[in-house]
């Protein structure tokens, strides 16, 4: 499935500056795997040592938090938009 992923400013230093990417994944876990294969440094920014999503990073599929869907097993369909929303500190 072709989905779009928005990379927020605080993570662009590990995606070669890219703000939006496309990927071909059937679920959120696969999508993270695909991102990690392309940008190895993004892995530790999104997941902890056990592979779970970090507790200061939220993933939204079409505006819904995957934590309240099926987590990393949340299905993706063509055209879905995935947003990565990390907690930010600046001010």
């Amino acid at each position: 499935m072709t989905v779009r992923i928005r990379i927020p400013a605080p993570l662009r230093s590990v995606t070669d500056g890219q703000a939006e990417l496309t990927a071909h994944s059937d679920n959120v876990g696969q999508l993270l795997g695909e991102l990690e294969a392309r940008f190895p440094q993004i892995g530790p920014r999104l997941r902890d040592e056990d592979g779970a999503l970090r507790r200061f990073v939220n993933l939204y599929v079409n505006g819904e938090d995957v934590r309240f869907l099926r987590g990393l097993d949340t299905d993706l369909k063509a055209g879905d938009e995935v947003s990565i929303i990390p907690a930010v500190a600046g001010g």
Partner: protein
Amino acid sequence: MDRYSRQTIFPEIGPDGQRRLLGSRVTLVGCGALGTVLANVLVRAGVGTLRIVDRDYVELSNLQRQILFDEDDARDGLPKATAAATKLARINSEILLEPIVEDFGPDNAERLVHDADVVLDGTDNFEARYVVNDVCVKLGRPWVYAAAIGSYGVVMPIVPGETPCLRCVFPQPPGAGAVDTCDTAGVLGPVPGVIANLAATEAIKLLVGAREHLALGLLWLDAWYNTIQRTPITAPVVDCPTCQQRTFEFLDGAGGRRATTLCGRDAVQVRPTRPGELALDALAERLSAVGTVRSNPHLLRLTVEGHDLTIFRDGRAIVKGTGDPTVARSLYARYVGT
């Protein structure tokens, strides 16, 4: 009330709303890029009392985005809370302003928040934000989370007992080095301005009693890549440790770290082991033997060993020229004491 005519004829505020604003009290935590814009809006809008808490002093690199400060403030190295209050008093002399030059943390949070109708987040670090969340949930004070970095920013109004709290949305703050800071990613001047103006709008809704119009959920935008979205997050998380189980681990964290690296700066803040008022005059005299000392009524600055130590009345120091807490602590011990 002529000063406020443009917002009293706005029917959603009206004369009643204006009276509520004038009778209200706000605590602003942090007076940098977000905080100066928040303070500017609220003082012009006629918030009765504004308490401004900030631990830092004005520098030239602040002027790109921190709208209440000017070159004189930077040259004089004034505390931000003091410089902001001076400017704000010229904007609206009817407002009671309380500048507080302190580091907001577990030991003073309840004192600074207990009488506020609304608390505003102008901080630049997670440590302070999670203390704000704890104290506001504990005391039942509405607050507005706001943050900005690069071209990206977020805003979320939080009403304890009604909406999700910060920990419902971000269950844990990142550890040191886990996310970019304005140190590593920079910040586009207008972005904190946009974010703070949105946060101030939420504050005005809260203060005039228009809770039904709050922009509930997490609003985020990227001003360079042209995205703005609001993710509605309507219900608190059932097992949220803060707003459901009412445990306040950030507020109860005994004193926190003694030395903290500051966002966007080659600097570390060191707190005294025992809080207390420093006699700045006597200290200035003593330190003039070891390095260059400049002082104003609020702080003194010692230049020594390639570092600048800015020492405040409350015993804190900001050590510039290092990002290493150990180096900063040892300079503090050598020149200020333990």
